[in-house]
């Protein structure tokens, strides 16, 4: 049975404004699926629908061909890093690792620059470090799929490169759904890419497609 999440027939509108008009996309285990789109096109809304935090007028979400209302109801199926900070500020970094069942020694072996911060409270980290840590916690924890909303935003280029490497390494273990405005960074690591424009998702292959659909000049 295929380890994939399929999102189908997603229709979302706020009042008269139609945001999503029949989105269809698939995220498979062992792959990075990129979602691109302009501001306000509905990318984050789509991720909230997938995670069960926003109810669309219509949506069909399936995992292993089974229809689910909320993917969080299946233990260890998904986790999600929204685009805003979402961890309690007073928790220590080592406590966060424990909550996510991440082995501290293995984590620090992978990210030695965080060793001196391991006992620090989350709010004492810089903005870029907090973002990096949040994305790493979601990536490194044991779920079948990770959904990342703007993981590269506020992260310095050196750490963006690190994140890309880890995403490519970890896709062997899980499926990764990613959206970010830094389209080149998303394209470099994606096995499959979708562009959301005018309420629908089109599969795109490269920058030529992005130009032809008006995402790039």
């Amino acid at each position, binding site marked *: 049975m295929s380890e994939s999440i399929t999102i189908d027939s997603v229709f979302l509108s706020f009042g008269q404004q139609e945001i999503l008009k029949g989105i269809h996309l698939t995220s498979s285990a062992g792959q990075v699926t990129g979602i691109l789109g302009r501001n306000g096109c509905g990318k984050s809304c789509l991720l909230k629908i997938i*995670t069960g935090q926003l109810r669309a007028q219509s949506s069909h979400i399936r995992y292993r061909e089974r229809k689910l209302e909320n993917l969080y109801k299946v233990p260890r199926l998904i986790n*999600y890093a*929204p685009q805003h900070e*979402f961890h*309690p500020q007073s928790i220590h970094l080592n406590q966060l690792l424990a*909550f*996510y069942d991440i082995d501290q020694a293995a984590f620090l072996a992978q990210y030695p620059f965080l060793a001196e911060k391991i006992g620090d409270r989350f709010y004492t980290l810089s903005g870029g470090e907090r973002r990096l840590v949040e994305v790493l916690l*979601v990536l490194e924890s044991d779920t079948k799929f990770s959904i990342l909303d703007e993981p590269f935003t506020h992260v310095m280029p050196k750490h963006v490169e690190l994140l890309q490497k880890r995403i490519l390494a970890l896709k062997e273990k899980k499926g990764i759904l990613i959206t970010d405005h830094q389209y080149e960074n998303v394209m470099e690591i994606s096995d499959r890419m979708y562009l959301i424009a005018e309420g629908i998702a089109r599969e795109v292959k490269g920058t030529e497609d992005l130009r032809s659909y008006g995402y790039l000049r």
Partner: protein
Amino acid sequence: MVLKKLRLLSIYAKDFLFYAAVITLLTYYIYFITGIHALNIILWFKIITTALGVFIHQKRKAKELYFYMNNGLGKRELMIVAAAIDLLVWGIGLIAIVNAKP
């Protein structure tokens, strides 16, 4: 697993339970002053302030929700357990006080 969930719940509900404890003590004080005939008012006061507390707490913690969901606890689960603990402690305390000072 249960211990982890309890720790997560304590992080989530700490502020709410402090607020609830203040309200609980206030209702006990009102009971001491007014006696048994104010029980109905005390009951409604506790229910309304708890509902208000739940509403405000959920708004305040909305941004952190995915942290708890990523770790296996949903929005309803968190708030229902927190409110249930508060109301249970309040109810037991009130019964004890009513029995001690009818």
